[in-house]
């Protein structure tokens, strides 16, 4: 028994050697024909994909550059002190956009103060407390679907629910609540992301020192996740500031000579103002410059809000440094 196995082993060994030798002999030819071909194809693919990736990245950059150039070159002439500090006059064919700027800022701040706490609290619940299971899956499904609803649907919902049913009228609060619901999945998403990035070892360390779950969350998890959570806030603000559809039925009006006086005021906002000038005005062509000027202000506003938050976030990150 033993002998025969070892004999078989020997035979096996022998075969292996011969195959090996044969391969070695063939090698040079392989190299010449086959190998070179493969090498060439590999190289070609390398170059091709490298080029594609680079092109895609470049298109990205080019798109932003073109947009900014286009808006700057068309709208820069419209930007005057008067444009920034006066309300529109003469059926909005002249004058400024002050009410729109103030309206947009108010609306963004209000909608983030709705979406941010609710979003952060939900994310904490989902990530730190909820047990994996059916209920959690249903909640997640709802959030994902909420993120997929077209913005004009939010507008109609806001009109029906906040403006009419809850009798808020067309007002900042109705618009802020509508926008809040819309940006809420964005905030949840980035907050959860940030909470997941907090290593479990921090939670263990805190628990091991005799901290309650709430203390652990408030004193260790949230401070560590704060930079990431703020990103959610930033995304929320930018989204809210630029939206038209959800607010045109709920908060924004065509024209309002007064500045907003409280959360129940109706307001003018930048994106809707552009929309009105470009489609429904009496002098669409004559107000082109005003349209681009307004767009320029809107973009500047959104970008500078982002910038402030990004700088703040970078500062925080330096302090906690994970």
């Amino acid at each position, binding site marked *: 028994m033993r002998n025969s196995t070892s004999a078989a082993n020997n035979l096996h060994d022998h075969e292996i050697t011969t195959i090996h030798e044969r391969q070695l002999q063939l090698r040079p030819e392989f190299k010449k024909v086959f190998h070179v071909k493969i090498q060439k194809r590999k190289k070609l693919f390398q170059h091709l994909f490298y080029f594609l990736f680079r092109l895609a990245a470049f298109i990205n950059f080019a798109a932003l550059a073109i947009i900014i150039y286009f808006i700057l070159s068309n709208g820069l002439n419209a930007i005057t002190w008067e444009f920034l500090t006066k309300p529109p006059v003469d059926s909005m064919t002249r004058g400024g956009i002050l009410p729109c700027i103030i309206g947009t800022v108010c609306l963004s701040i209000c909608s983030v103060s709705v979406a941010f706490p609710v979003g952060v609290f939900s994310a904490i619940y989902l990530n730190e407390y909820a047990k994996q299971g059916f209920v959690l899956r249903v909640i997640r499904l709802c959030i994902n679907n909420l993120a997929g609803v077209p913005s004009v649907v939010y507008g109609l919902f806001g009109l029906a629910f906040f403006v009419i049913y809850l009798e808020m009228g067309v007002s900042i609060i109705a618009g802020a609540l509508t926008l809040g619901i819309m940006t809420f999945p964005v905030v949840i998403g980035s907050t959860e992301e940030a909470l997941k990035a907090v290593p479990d*070892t*921090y939670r263990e360390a*805190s628990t091991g020192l*005799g901290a*309650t779950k709430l203390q652990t969350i408030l004193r*260790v998890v949230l401070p*560590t996740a704060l930079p990431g959570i703020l990103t959610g806030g930033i995304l929320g603000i930018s989204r809210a500031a630029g939206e038209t559809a959800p607010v045109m039925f709920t908060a924004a009006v065509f024209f309002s000579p007064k500045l907003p006086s409280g959360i129940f005021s109706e307001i003018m906002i930048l994106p809707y103002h552009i929309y009105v000038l470009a489609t429904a005005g009496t002098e669409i062509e004559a107000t082109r410059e005003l349209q681009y000027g307004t767009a320029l202000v809107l973009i500047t506003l959104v970008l500078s809000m982002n910038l402030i938050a990004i700088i703040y976030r970078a500062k925080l990150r330096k*302090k*906690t440094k994970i």
Partner: protein
Amino acid sequence: MDKKLKIRSKNLNFYYSQFKALHDISLDFYENQATALIGPSGCGKSTFLRCLNRMNDLITGIRVEGSILIDGKNIYDPSIDVVSLRGRVGMVFQKPNPFPKTIFENVAYGLKIKGIKDKNLIAEYVEKSLRAGALWDEVKDRLNNTALGLSGGQQQRLCIARALAVNPDVLLMDEPCSALDPIATQKIEELIHDLKKSYTIIIVTHNMQQAARTSDITAFFYMGKLIEAGKTDTIFTNPALKTTEDYITGRFG
């Protein structure tokens, strides 16, 4: 040499869902002694250690049978306050895990969650704990720097100091030196030696020399069972069982 009984594990069984990780563990720990838990990877040392301050409670689907008495009280009794238990039974983890806060804030953390507000008192405790953790001299000039800037060995001593700050009776250490170089390891071993005077210490280690150097009692685990426990000298020179001898001498498998 009459030592006072501190912890008594009685017929402890532990399950991760269906998987039985600990089988009928009965083991005593005495005050002012260091006990080393040794055994091959996966034998349940960490699981057992984490039973002693109920850290396993964080994992879903676990089940515990039997009892663990600390100062005569069963810590698995429903009436026990788990949070204050963890204050009495401190833990140091395998990987140093300081919070992304300053050195001072790390040590002060346990005090603050206890509700201590007096700034002077906190500063006093922080200094005392850092001294006890043999780290004070190295960090006293940079208490407000982030703890993540410390070396691995310093971080681990910071974690020990942080655990000491809440003034526990028992200190659990799960392979505290496995991520450290020999010099840092030696520092921590010396520290364990000092800490023994005031704490009950239980240390998991894969390093036989370390177990021999630091502990008074050694317990050998194998496949979720406690195989043999006794005076460290005896276990290392004259173990009662063949399995223990094989493991200690490295003839395992």
